[in-house]
């Protein structure tokens, strides 16, 4: 299991680990998994955990065992993409659960995610988030979907070995999961949604039905949207997004466009993929068709 912290509280880490410990026990009882390694990466400006707090968390893992938990303070903000890549290099597990620190695993989460991995063609399995379910369309029969949310996904190590990890040079915080999913699908793997695998994810909506976003989220999601249109070869969308961001009136949007233009000028953008649009899906402002909108 990988979790990347950024100024999260010790309590939230303890809550997550308690739920994961229980989910591991449930999965082991059903022989879905054998041993487990829990890796915490910390991108905060100061370590979230003191040695004593880490020891306390390790002792609390009654099923996984104290030695299963390791903590790595990065001493720099690696973002979610860079942080997870770092953690990929620190273990050799066949399957990796990536989970956000503000999540709580249901007891059956791991077991149900592993169920969906029984098909060797499946590379990534996405959990269902509660209370705000991601409204991405998926095949009701097979679970196939456009991409898997990095809030809680199970990924096969072979996928990482084949396509590399997250593209941390292009995506600091957002769309790293979409990009990873699409590269996995380009490589022939399936990405599936497993609605019976539930995770609580502490997300809020504002009164207009929009996900509550801070300044950093506004900036990085704008930057990521430009990068997605570039990398996944949608020139029309790139120019349209660029113009919309420039005229939105938000300073964060203008800075994101400036940063993108600078990288373009310096030839620092990634290679373009999928010119035939085999896997990339741009539907309105989303990367998949949606079943519903929270502002409908």
């Amino acid at each position, binding site marked *: 299991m990988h979790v990347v912290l950024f100024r999260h509280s010790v309590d*939230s880490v303890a*809550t997550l680990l*308690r*739920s994961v*410990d*229980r989910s591991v026990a*449930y999965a082991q009882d059903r022989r879905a998994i054998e041993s487990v390694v829990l890796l915490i990466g910390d991108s905060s400006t100061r370590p979230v955990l003191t040695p004593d707090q880490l020891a306390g968390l390790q002792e609390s893992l009654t099923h996984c065992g104290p030695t299963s938990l390791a903590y790595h303070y990065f001493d720099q903000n690696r973002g979610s993409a860079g942080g997870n890549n770092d953690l990929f290099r620190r273990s050799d597990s066949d399957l990796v659960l990536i989970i956000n620190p503000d999540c*709580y695993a*249901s*007891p*059956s989460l791991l077991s149900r995610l592993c169920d969906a991995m029984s098909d060797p063609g499946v590379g990534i399995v996405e959990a269902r988030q*509660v*209370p705000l379910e991601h409204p991405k369309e998926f095949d009701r029969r097979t679970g196939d979907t456009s991409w898997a949310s990095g809030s809680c996904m199970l990924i096969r190590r072979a996928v990482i070995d084949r396509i590399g990890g997250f593209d941390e040079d292009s995506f600091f915080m957002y769309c790293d999961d979409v990009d990873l999913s699409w590269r996995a699908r380009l490589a022939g793997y399936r990405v599936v949604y497993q609605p019976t695998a*539930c995770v*609580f994810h*502490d*997300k*809020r909506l504002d009164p207009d039905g929009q996900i509550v976003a801070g300044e950093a989220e506004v900036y990085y999601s704008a930057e990521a949207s430009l990068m997605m249109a570039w990398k996944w070869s949608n020139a029309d969308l790139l120019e349209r997004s660029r113009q919309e961001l420039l005229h939105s009136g938000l300073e964060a949007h203008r800075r994101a466009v400036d940063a993108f233009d600078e990288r373009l000028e310096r030839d620092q953008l990634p290679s373009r993929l999928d010119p035939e649009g085999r896997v990339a899906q741009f539907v309105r402002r989303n990367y998949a068709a949606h079943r519903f909108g929270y502002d409908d």
Partner: protein
Amino acid sequence: MTDPTQPAAFSLAALVPCGPASTRISETLLSLAAQTSPALEIHVIVEGGSSSELRGLQDLVGTFDEDFSRRVHVAAMDRFDSRTAVAVGVARSRATHVAGPRRSESMPLAPAVGPWHPWSRCRPLTHGRGVTYER
């Protein structure tokens, strides 16, 4: 750490229909497990359903970590009992305050504001509304 031998400060009592709502109750339990502290105990009063369905619900509670599952109490509503779920919860709970959802047929995912907030040193809760009753 709260002493498990002491009564919780607050209780949530809710009436849930058995059977078709099983998916919903599992999500509700997940939400409560994620968001509430040991100061809150939970009484799930089950209406209808067979004894095996009731056992299934108890088994579901048992799959959660012990810190949470020991705070959740499942009981069947007597078919001849005319009391509300909250009244049953008051009778069963040792807490000083008991709350229940406004509509008896639905259990909130978790309370958000109002009288819930100062209760239990828990993180702000995401969904739902409740009403409280002082014992």
